[in-house]
């Protein structure tokens, strides 16, 4: 396995994995670099959002201030909330995971590197578009949850809301791509021997967080699409007069919004569970119970969304369910807190700078949790709804639960970024200033809230008893800002003055400390096998063995980027994952997508359409560069005794990636069907035509046509698995043609059905369902055609059966979409009145 001395080996690896400089840096797809970019960009947005917070506090410091007018104030607080939630908290946590997860799992990279690069560029461009709106004085101003009808066209006529809807959708797509990537990497690219019960706890947290993003973000993406369609194209969804319901927006928003809080908190808790045992110098107490608690939090947090809507008039019994669920979710959090305390209690803790921040986290977060339980009580909630009390609670949870662990993590992993250790001096000042300033600001704000001061009021009259607490809060927030600046200065200075870090400087147990400091682009020259939960504690020599190239997959002469693909449960090696190298494609796709976004914003629909076509072409080109796409086709050499390259198997990571993506897609579609049934039962002025506008027989025929094509593909795939590729190219081409025919028929059905989506919500929802189905059917048809073409080149055959199998899932999914559309749009209405 070893081809030379480690130094030579390093050089050879650098040739294959190295990062280009200058302009070509935009082609880098490596997770270490992408993760760093996420973190730096997140920091930039944090500073931006923090400056906005200081503007808010300056305005509220004294009564009757005229520092900002009401209109500017609305933009500033909306942008503050939006930036902090969407552009700082989630991307920061995902970025850190993108950086850490492969290293902790003992892998060289994430499994779809180009996808993470795309996610990053979408995040950057979407964030910049959104931030630009503030400087154009066109920023969204309807609050970070953009309630309809306030955000609808009649009440927000400018482009302000459109900036939010388009920009945030763009950023959310980025969040989902990173989530898909993380799920599959955690399940399929762990070090050999890392069974499920040996996975670092952080991986459990990130797995849960990523699945929550996969299921939780699509409802909001759908909501944004619907609201934008209503605003730009005049379709009706949230407009009562035309049979819509503004409360539908609230459901879609909070269906995302509550899990969002845990999407932010869980990864932070994962950081705590990673650092605390290291400083306590013992394994975490109750590993299994922490796993159970994390999973429970992940699920139950989806059943809480209505607790944000206790005042909109939902039946008491339903409220009671959500109230009970809200109280319940505090328990798994409590389990984790006890596990942390027990770990400290039973360990022999050493106190370094990160521990200070962990201590601050425990104090503030527990306090925030207590006010959360207060808010879950419906009568109390009614008292303080939309007062500063809620603002105080939310910052205790968010800043305490996310920002403090994050700073602890920054200090803890500093050696990774600089090769140096943090200094103990300035860091302490920073901590105490932030901790003191924070409590001064927000502890007092609880009181302001109980005195009845509403949130989002741009100013207030003197003499209501709100003057003093507001002044104190503002002073506190400036102290906190000074503290944050101190931390930043400390981190910057340490790049020059920090002491050089020794290997594994904190004596940690996880594999990310087996890299060089800072790590190379390929993380490890040879990939470890693991036989315990704490590999670096149980086998301290592992670091040296890995660096000497004595562990797995140390060959590089073939010039491919590779990492192990392992079994999701047992961690046994199943294949070699062949990773793509640097490419312009992700950057270009994100650039073209931002052209779409800007085109829609300024209503230059021609530009937007051209850009959409360009994006489609780029994405198809991207899909071409998979597996064997160059000379020689599928005849690619591997060393004897090694498992096959992943695209020669039936069950590589792409299959899992497609599966997880379709879960997200399915969540969006389910939210759409939910909207249909919701409006049907609840919308106050739901209007149904006497005769269904849809051609019932035509819909049935269409579904049957799709079924025929799907079944045919199924047979082709079954043959491929058995090792027969007879007539593969011709059959794939025929299936593609059949699929496109069915799409054309669906288009015609939509066209001929005489829908009036601008007149009633009923028709508008039907139009969206049909459009959704159409998009997916066309996609499947075109992609299958592309596979036929690849079969023609010999890139896909019985030796490389992987891609058609991945694609097969999309067909099964479409099968489900078209049939459920038939049931919901044709069968349901005819049995339930109407039609």
């Amino acid at each position, binding site marked *: 396995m070893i081809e030379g001395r480690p130094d030579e080996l390093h050089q050879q690896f650098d040739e294959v994995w190295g990062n280009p400089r200058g302009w070509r840096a935009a082609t880098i797809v490596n997770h270490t670099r992408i993760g760093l970019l996420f973190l730096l960009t997140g920091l930039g947005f944090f500073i931006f959002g923090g400056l906005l917070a200081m503007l808010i506090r300056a305005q509220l410091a004294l009564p009757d201030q005229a520092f900002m007018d009401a209109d500017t104030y609305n933009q500033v607080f909306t942008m503050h909330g939006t930036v902090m939630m969407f552009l700082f908290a989630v991307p920061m946590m995902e970025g850190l995971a993108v950086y850490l997860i492969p290293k902790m799992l003992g892998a060289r990279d994430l499994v779809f590197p180009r996808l993470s690069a795309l996610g990053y560029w979408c995040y950057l461009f979407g964030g910049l578009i959104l931030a630009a709106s503030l400087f154009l004085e066109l920023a969204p101003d309807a609050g970070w949850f953009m309630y309809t009808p306030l955000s609808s066209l009649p009440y927000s006529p400018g482009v302000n809301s459109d900036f939010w809807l388009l920009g945030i959708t763009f950023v959310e797509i980025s969040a989902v791509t990173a989530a898909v990537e993380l799920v599959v990497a955690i399940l399929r690219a762990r070090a050999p021997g890392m069974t*499920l019960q040996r996975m670092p706890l952080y991986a459990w947290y990130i797995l849960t967080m990523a699945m929550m993003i996969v299921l939780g973000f699509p409802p909001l993406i759908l909501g944004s699409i619907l609201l934008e369609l209503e605003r730009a194209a005049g379709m009706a969804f949230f407009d009562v007069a035309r049979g819509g319901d503004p409360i539908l927006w609230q459901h879609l928003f909070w269906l995302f919004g509550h899990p969002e809080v845990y999407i932010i908190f869980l990864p932070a808790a994962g950081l705590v569970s990673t650092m605390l045992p290291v400083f306590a110098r013992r394994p975490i107490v109750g590993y299994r119970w922490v796993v*159970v608690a994390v*999973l429970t939090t992940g699920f*139950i947090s989806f059943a809480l969304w209505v607790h944000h809507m206790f005042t909109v008039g939902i039946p008491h019994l339903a409220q009671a*369910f959500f109230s*009970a669920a809200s109280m*319940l979710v505090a328990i798994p959090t409590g389990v984790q807190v006890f596990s942390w305390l027990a770990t400290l209690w039973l360990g022999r803790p050493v106190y370094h700078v990160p521990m200070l921040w962990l201590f601050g986290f425990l104090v503030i977060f527990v306090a925030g949790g207590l006010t959360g339980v207060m808010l879950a009580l419906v009568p109390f909630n009614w008292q303080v709804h939309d007062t500063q009390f809620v603002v105080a609670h939310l910052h205790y949870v968010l800043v305490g639960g996310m920002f403090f662990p994050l700073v602890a993590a920054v200090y803890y992993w500093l050696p990774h970024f600089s090769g140096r250790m943090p200094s103990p001096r300035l860091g302490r000042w920073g901590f105490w200033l932030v901790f003191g300033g924070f409590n001064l600001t927000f502890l007092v704000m609880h009181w302001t809230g109980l005195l009845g001061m509403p949130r989002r009021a741009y100013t207030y009259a003197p003499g209501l008893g709100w003057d003093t607490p507001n002044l104190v809060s503002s002073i506190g927030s400036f102290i906190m800002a000074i503290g944050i600046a101190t931390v930043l200065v400390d981190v910057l200075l340490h790049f020059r003055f920090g002491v050089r870090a020794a290997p594994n400087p904190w004596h940690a147990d996880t594999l990310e400390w087996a890299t060089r400091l800072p790590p190379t682009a390929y993380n490890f020259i040879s990939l470890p096998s693991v036989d315990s939960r704490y590999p670096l504690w149980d086998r301290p020599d592992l670091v040296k063995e890995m660096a000497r190239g004595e562990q797995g997959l140390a060959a590089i002469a073939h010039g491919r980027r590779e990492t192990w693909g392992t079994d999701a449960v047992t961690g046994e090696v199943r294949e070699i994952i062949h990773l793509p190298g640097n490419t312009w494609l992700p950057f270009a796709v994100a650039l073209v997508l931002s052209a779409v976004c800007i085109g829609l914003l300024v209503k230059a629909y021609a530009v937007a359409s051209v850009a959409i076509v360009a994006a489609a072409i780029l994405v198809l080109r991207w899909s071409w560069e998979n597996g064997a796409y160059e000379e020689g086709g599928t005849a690619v050499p591997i060393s004897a005794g090694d498992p096959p390259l992943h695209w020669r198997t039936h069950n590589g990571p792409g299959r899992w990636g497609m599966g997880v993506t379709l879960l997200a897609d399915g969540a969006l579609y389910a939210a759409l069907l939910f909207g249909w049934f919701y409006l049907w039962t*609840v919308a106050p002025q739901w209007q149904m035509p006497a005769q269904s506008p849809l051609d019932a027989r035509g819909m049935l025929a269409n579904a049957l046509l799709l079924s025929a094509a799907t079944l045919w593909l199924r047979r082709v795939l079954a043959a491929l698995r058995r090792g027969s590729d007879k007539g593969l190219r011709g059959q794939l081409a025929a299936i593609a043609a059949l699929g496109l025919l069915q799409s054309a028929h669906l288009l015609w059905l939509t066209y001929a059905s005489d829908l009036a989506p601008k007149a009633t919500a009923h028709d508008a929802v039907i139009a969206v369902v049909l459009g959704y189905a159409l998009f997916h059917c066309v996609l499947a048809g075109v992609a299958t055609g592309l596979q036929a073409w690849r079969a023609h080149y010999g890139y896909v055959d019985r030796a490389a059966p992987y891609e058609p199998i991945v694609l097969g899932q999309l067909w099964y999914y479409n099968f489900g979409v078209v049939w459920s559309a038939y049931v919901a749009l044709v069968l349901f209405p005819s049995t339930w009145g109407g039609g």
Partner: protein
Amino acid sequence: MTWLYHPLQIPLGLIVWGVWFIALYSGLSVGCAVAPPDAAAGPWNWLNVVLGGASLATVALLLGLSALCWRASRRVGQNERAKRFIARVGASVHLVAALATLFIALPIVGLPPCV
């Protein structure tokens, strides 16, 4: 009984709980839209009985699965730690899901459904 060692056991209890919760909320909404029981009659009416019965059945199912997993976890040998882990986590998750179901369903006994 290899299915007791399948990794899907790990989240299964919470998936069952999730399906139950969706059914509970949508059942309540649809019930109230179609045939709302009289509020004056209090919690004893057809809708609450249906919802309560379904909830009890779910609790029973989850407890049963939990017990099965727990027993399965004690059957494996020393060298099958991965299996034991899955069965143990599965048993715990099922138990937690059963308790969550019970707790969230509790208000059915005390409140009329549609007001």
